[in-house]
């Protein structure tokens, strides 16, 4: 039996800081090859279908942008939270609430048209997401309640709320009882960027703008410095007069607003109406995006494109090889695992030490407890 030993580096390794996402990607590919082989598929062929064919034509790049937009928007917001050591994992719920609140305009006022509709919807979406994110923030700031669990519980509540809306009060009366709202009118649809070549809409632009703005915030402004100080040393932050409670609200509501914007952009751009399910787990995949992008807004743009590709690849292998599109989730999970593992190399050197298995002699004691 081998034992790993970590040896602390005198300072963080810039080399591995840059390389780690790439090493993680290569490891994911290797693990993926094993997975495909186990499923009885030639890995090379599978990879060609998974990673290359979904991006071989221009219209497919548009699809990539459609999938990447919400991932980047949410991931950028989450990176601020995670830098501040605040664990918002309920972005999926904030995404849904953004979609719902933004959609209230075209659903409740279908006659309301004109250039004002869309900006209002986007604003409502951001407010909806931010307000929903304010709940776990308030509970944490006021009662010191664990934000991981509350923000996650609110995801289930949001999903059920959306389900109720589209089956109940917001259902399209002329929709043959399908659980969906009316189709939005034209002024409530997020326009496509280049309709001539594909479906990509303004959501992708929002994502890029958000990434740049958050990058400026984090690297050039006092608030960003505050986030980083409170994240790495709350004690030092307190001495500097930074308020941890205000930071909880700031981080949650910023990420909530971006998730909400992603939600309403998805509903108004890619879907065009509300349905019982409006997200294939973007809020959770964005957690992976945030880490894969090193919690750096610009890295997150690249990571968002990679994760978007895993979604498209999942769909591609499902239709071409008959493998469940859940394979996308597996790839995403493995990617996060390997990124986290490789990040260890930034701070530590790893030494392998050969050893006789010592871990087993204590086992009977735990056995007794069963």
């Amino acid at each position: 039996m081998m034992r790993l030993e970590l040896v602390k580096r005198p300072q963080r390794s810039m080399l591995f800081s840059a390389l780690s996402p790439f090493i993680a990607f290569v490891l994911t590919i290797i693990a993926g090859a094993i997975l495909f082989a186990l499923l009885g598929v030639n890995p090379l062929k599978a990879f060609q279908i998974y990673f290359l064919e979904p991006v071989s034509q221009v219209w497919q790049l548009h699809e990539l942008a459609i999938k990447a937009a919400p991932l980047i928007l949410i991931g950028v917001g989450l990176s601020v939270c995670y830098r501040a050591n605040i664990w918002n994992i309920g972005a999926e719920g904030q995404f849904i609430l953004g979609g719902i609140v933004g959609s209230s305009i075209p659903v409740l006022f279908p006659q309301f048209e004109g250039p004002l509709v869309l900006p209002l919807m986007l604003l409502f979406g951001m407010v909806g997401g931010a307000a929903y994110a304010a709940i776990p923030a308030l509970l944490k700031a006021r009662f010191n309640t664990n934000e991981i669990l509350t923000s996650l519980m609110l995801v289930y509540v949001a999903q059920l709320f959306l389900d109720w809306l589209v089956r109940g009060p917001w259902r399209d009366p002329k929709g043959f009882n399908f659980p969906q709202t009316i189709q939005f009118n034209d002024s409530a649809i997020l326009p496509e960027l280049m309709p001539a070549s594909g479906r990509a809409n303004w959501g992708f632009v929002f994502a890029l703008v958000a990434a740049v703005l958050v990058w400026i915030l984090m690297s050039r402004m006092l608030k960003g410095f505050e986030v980083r100080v409170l994240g790495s040393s709350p004690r030092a932050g307190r001495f500097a007069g930074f308020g941890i409670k205000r930071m909880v609200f700031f981080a949650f509501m910023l990420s909530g607003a971006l998730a909400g914007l992603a939600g309403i952009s998805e509903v108004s751009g890619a879907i065009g109406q509300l349905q019982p399910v409006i997200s294939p787990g973007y809020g959770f995949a964005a957690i992976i995006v945030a880490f894969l992008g090193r919690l750096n807004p610009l890295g997150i743009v690249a990571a968002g494109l990679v994760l978007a590709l895993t979604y498209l690849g999942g769909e591609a292998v499902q239709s071409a090889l008959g493998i469940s599109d859940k394979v996308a989730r597996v790839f995403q999970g493995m990617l996060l695992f390997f990124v986290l593992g490789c990040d260890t190399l930034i701070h530590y050197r790893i030494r392998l030490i050969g050893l006789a298995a010592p871990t087993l002699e204590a086992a009977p004691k735990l056995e007794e407890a069963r």
Partner: protein
Amino acid sequence: MDITVNILLTIATAATPLLIAAIGELVVERSGVLNLGVEGMMIMGAVGGFGAGYLTGSPWIGLLAAIALGAVFSLLFAVMTLSLATNQVATGLSLTLLGLGLSGMMGTSFVGQPGARLPNLDIPGLTAMPVIGRLLFGQDPIFYISIALTAAVMWFLFKTRTGLTLRSIGDSHTSAHALGIKVIRYRYLAVIFGGACAGLAGGHLSLVYTPQWVENMTAGRGWIALALVVFASWRPWRVLAGAYIFGAVWIGQLHAQAFGIPVPSQLLSSLPYLATIVVLVLISRNKRLTMMNTPASLGQPFVPDR
């Protein structure tokens, strides 16, 4: 009377997976490790339990497979957080995400198949007794395991030297290490124990609760189990009480839906999640209580120096 007994039995069935998963996580957290992957390990146990039971026809083999799969899956987390000192929150999350994806993939061919169900206990003479017969002697085997497990963990943590050591590691890994205690080794075993428990809890879902495979069938129970540990302020008997309160909420909302109470079914379905939030708020309001009971080094990575 019969209705009351039936309701109590269903509450026990709903509470059992929560109890087992939470008791496992309690041991993990008492050792100072926060494993947010309970939901992922649980769903792996559910798919493994169903699959093995379905393929072999024996629910008992399914049960063993569920435990084994949960334990093996938790080993991934252990290697990452304990040997590679990764961030426990992020690693736990990725374990959950990976588990949900992997189980969905493994389970594609099981959807809609009839599964094997673990038989309820049936002791001639005893089980047929009125009222208490079925409550005490007529439940599924995992129910009895869950009660025994709770008692065993209570005894282990508070009455044995090893349990004391485990708790001391959770409170200060540096001091424990300085005393020559193998911090990492203890934590490995605790995490694997927690994984086995989560797997068993998942197995209960697919072998007893609803003997079939449905994607995401854990439906957030792993997260509720995590909340239960906080709610119980890391005490086994309070986990037991909490699990049964939540079982009652879960069953209560199902019954309310069946009776056609004029409230949207979605609102009723969201009650367990809302109740979790309320309970967490109530318990965390009392800052001193939480501060006193939380294992002091919970969630902090530990790298032994030489």
